[in-house]
């Protein structure tokens, strides 16, 4: 039955009902509606005068009373911040329009030639225009640029040279997206410049995020909402939250090789779900073993591997129907799995052992294991260097392995425990989430050289680079 006038007429009628309804109910923000605001500060690398300021208070002005923002750092030294971006404040505010920000300084120390001067500051602070619209459950970023300027003449007050950055969001290819669990947002990072440029509110406790290049969508597992958030990668808007079942607590995601199916791993209900990406309809649902932690796909035949920690096995499901094909009992407490696409090798990390085990998917051969300095929490394979990268939280490092040959290469040391890692599409950058220090570090993938550290706040969880 080709499509008919009747169903299209229904569609048209429904659209008009939506229109009338939306006109009838006013667009003003209601009491109790909240949104999240991130305030970032950066100092250009070519700042002119070495200066140190002490922040006393930040006040955001809108239609109602000013809202105080608690600064995360009160002492700001220009020399330490040169060329960097820091997170000045994160706040959950009433939704609405805000137009300016007042900065009250506690004091200033600047250098004038060889002398150190402490000019007086305005006691009521200074106000800067920062127009921002905060909508219900959404998030926004204000990026401030501080250019420490000349020291005022004696007897004159210090003027803070601050303005809101007006740079547009870079094109998609230069971005990375990080889920942050505390504020329930996806932070948009310019991975080439190492800056946060935007934020998308998705709801509490977002989990893994994944990108579909065929549809140009980002999919986010939303544990609290028991659903999958769909973000348009071009407009950076949350389009919808596709509901799953209550108690699913979705956490991990994977796309089929043709990107027509999205697999969702739900630790809450111990289930694996397949959704079609064209309609986001649930196609198949199956029960998995106890303690599901991670999933990976065989790019050749689409088989889905699910690491079940308490079950002590990696379960294998067919892509269509999600029929359980077999269980791999190779290493106890499996928590992470990865497939090397070009050689079809499966790697399994164990939580209770400092070991990664390998399996050849072509002939079912056990490839042996590799002992590490601690248990791995996440695995990712680089097709460029043909190395397996393993996040080792207890050692605060990334191990580089070639498990088939039993080789371990010099690891990448990190300032704190890594939890999640991924590559950019060309495998030139390695992006690592460090939840303890609430940062994303971007490393050069060959040598592990630090390219940038991006401050995120809260509890960052996962990252993807389209």
């Amino acid at each position, binding site marked *: 039955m080709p*499509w008919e006038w009747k169903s299209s007429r229904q569609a048209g009628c429904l659209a008009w009902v939506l*229109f009338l309804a939306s006109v009838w109910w006013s667009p003003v923000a209601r009491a109790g509606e909240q949104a999240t605001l991130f305030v970032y500060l950066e100092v250009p690398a070519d700042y002119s005068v070495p200066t140190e300021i002490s922040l006393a208070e930040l006040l955001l002005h809108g239609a109602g009373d000013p809202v105080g923002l608690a600064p995360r750092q009160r002492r700001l030294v220009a020399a330490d911040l040169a060329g960097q971006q820091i997170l000045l404040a994160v706040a959950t505010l009433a939704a609405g329009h805000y137009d300016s920000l007042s900065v009250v300084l506690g004091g200033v120390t600047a250098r004038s030639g060889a002398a150190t001067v402490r000019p007086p500051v305005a006691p009521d602070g200074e106000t800067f225009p920062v127009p921002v619209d905060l909508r219900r459950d959404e998030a926004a970023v204000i990026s401030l640029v501080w250019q420490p300027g000349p020291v005022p003449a004696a007897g004159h007050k210090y003027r803070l040279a601050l303005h809101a950055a007006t740079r547009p969001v870079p*094109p998609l290819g230069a971005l990375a997206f990080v889920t942050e669990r505390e504020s329930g947002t996806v932070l948009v990072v310019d991975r080439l410049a190492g800056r946060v440029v935007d934020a998308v509110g998705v709801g509490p406790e977002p989990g893994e995020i994944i990108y579909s290049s065929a549809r140009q969508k980002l999919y986010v597992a939303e544990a609290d909402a028991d659903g999958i958030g769909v973000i348009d990668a*071009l407009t950076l808007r949350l389009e919808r939250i596709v509901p799953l079942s209550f108690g699913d607590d979705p956490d991990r995601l994977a796309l089929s090789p043709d990107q027509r199916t999205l697999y969702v791993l739900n630790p809450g209900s111990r289930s694996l779900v397949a959704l079609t990406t064209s309609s986001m309809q649930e196609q198949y649902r199956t029960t998995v073993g106890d303690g599901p932690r991670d999933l990976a796909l065989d790019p050749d*035949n689409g088989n889905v591997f699910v690491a079940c920690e308490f079950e002590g096995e990696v379960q294998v499901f067919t892509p269509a129907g999600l029929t359980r094909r077999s269980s791999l009992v190779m290493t*106890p407490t499996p928590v992470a799995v990865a497939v090397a696409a070009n050689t079809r090798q499966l790697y399994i990390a164990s939580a209770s052992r400092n070991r990664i085990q390998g399996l050849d998917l072509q002939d079912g051969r056990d490839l042996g294991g590799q*002992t590490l300095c601690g248990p791995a929490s996440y695995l990712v394979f680089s097709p460029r260097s043909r190395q397996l990268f393993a996040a080792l939280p207890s050692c605060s490092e990334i191990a580089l392995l070639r498990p088939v040959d039993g080789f371990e290469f010099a690891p990448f040391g990190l300032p704190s425990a890594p939890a999640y890692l991924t590559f950019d599409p060309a495998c030139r950058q390695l992006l690592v989430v460090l939840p303890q220090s609430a940062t994303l570090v971007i490393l050069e993938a060959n040598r592990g050289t630090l390219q940038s550290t991006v401050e995120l706040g809260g509890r960052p969880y996962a990252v993807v680079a389209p």
Partner: protein
Amino acid sequence: MRIRIILLVALGLVLAGSARAVLWDPFSGYADVSAYQGEVNGEGENSLREDYNVAFSHKLAPWVDLRLAYRYFKFDQAFDLDPGVYRLEKQPSGELRWTHPNFLISGTLMRREVETPLQGTIITNTTQAVAKTRSTRYPVLELRYDEQHSYFAELRNERDIRNRRLQAAATLDREHHSYGYTYSHDVSDNVVSAQSSIGDRHLLRWRGQGAQSGGRLRLAGNYNFSYVDQKTVNNAGGPVLRLLPILTGLYRQTDAPDLVTLAPNAGLADGNTNDPVLPEIDLGGTNENHNIGADLASIRSIGALYIYTDRPSGDQLRWEVWGSQDNLTWSRAVPSPQQLFNGALNRYELSFPEIGYRYVKAVNSGLNQVGRVLVTELQVLEQLSDHPENRLLAASHQLDGRVDYRFSQKWRGSFDLNLQVDENPGRGGDRRRSAAGARLNYLARPTLSHNFNWQLSNQWYESGDADLTENVAGYTLAWTPLSTLRGSASLSDRLTWLDGQRAQRNTGVALEGNTDLLYGLALGVGGGVSWFADDFSGLDSRTWNLRGRVDAALTSVLDVSLDNTYFESFEHSTDEIRVRQSYGLGLDWRVTRAVFVRATVRSTREETRRYTVDGLISWNVLPSVRISVQHYELGVDQDVTTLRQGINLNWELSRRANLYLRVAKLDLSGGGGNRTTSFQQGLRIGF
């Protein structure tokens, strides 16, 4: 008329989106309408997709929430030549949730009706109930009931699957220890397989960790116990069968089935019983000698084969079952299996006395009275019991311990011990496994470190498979003499014994170095040699590889990367040399602040040459208008097996409404698939 209808829908949605409205608080949802004009292998195809979702949320009491939702999805397709098809889905659901600070109780009902012209209506009813405590001061208790009932509205007596599960769990987390217990009771009634099963399962776990001596000594332990009691009954009175895992599907059409190597065919074992495998396997008419098989990874007991088709097929077709241990020489295992065509499930069911092979295949002969029948899937089944009832009792114990000690700033060591006992896991009798490992790290200087590691693991089977022992020793030297220079050397030796006899040895050495030659120009080189000897098969090979990588920042906005890997393997017994070479070229060009170009070309040459080309241009034309152009190409030898090209334009009409246009080309003809060109336009609004 059709254009007018689409315009009508579009206008309504644009206006609704432009209103920037947040609808009446309790309601939320979205509407998504898109039209598609395409051409599949030269044949025109048009479709209209409508997707609507409305949810109503209401707080009945301070802690009690009600949520009702209705989802309507319709996908209509019209073709130039064939009659059109459609898929209609309706999904009402309701949920009542009581979220008390100390506990949470919830009930969910969901119904899903999927209607297609081919299959009729499939109905799935889902019921869930959950009760859970929330205070972490005491053990967290959870009781959960799930029921899923799927059936065909028109063929309920033939296709009806009902799964029920009751689960009770208790977890307790303390500072350094966590404890958990889970009980689950599963009941499954499956009219399709004519089998019912009842299972009980207990799972007990403990995990602990602690630090002593100011963090220098770290201890960790883990214990898991599981017990399973499962009874399976064949309601039709035949033997109890169980689906066997297939490593890969195999296929070839040949009239010499005794000496042939079948080629891998992933579609035969992808679980999809509806869509034909590619390339097509047509069993219709006089199409004989299709060798449809599977690799089971190891020798397994086989009692039945199911071959699924896309439509009802003839019962005059005859089948033979063949087996092999090497996918080259085949023997006719069952000349005349008992066979029937199950019209309700569209599958040939071949059953026979147990046979033991790693590779198995079915070969057809004779005339099929149906002219065209395509194969969709192959299933291989193991005979668990020749009675209509089978009971499995299995238990597993697993204990892991780890000690990590920092002797000084320079020395650090760790030791692991793992034990596992699986009683009657289902095959090969009891199984015991143990592993011990040690690791020693010496930081000679801040720029130089040595790592030693050793691992010994054993696996014993009561019967069946051979006992396995593995001993692995490794060493890594990491050296960073300059901030711009970094290198490492690795040695590894792995020895394997089967039933006490040395089976394999794998020894290797690898070197790797990375340096910044100039500002913005990074060079990485690496190489390695390894020796492999298999004492059982007499295989003796040497492998060496070389790798090189260059990353160049040509300008502040243009980065180029190159890499090359050469891999050569020499087999002594046959004097055979195998070469694998791969190249990669990458380019990242930030043309302006609004335009980004990325291109990646990767090629691998072994027995076949395989390459991928991946390109992306993303351009933010205006803050509300963004364009992206993509090209993806996967080729094998001279054929382009996958070609995907697309241009996407997204115009943000308001914060909640956007218009999208997409021109796409998907060409899978090189791999036996379709060639599709399409134009899609749509509007989306959320509220």
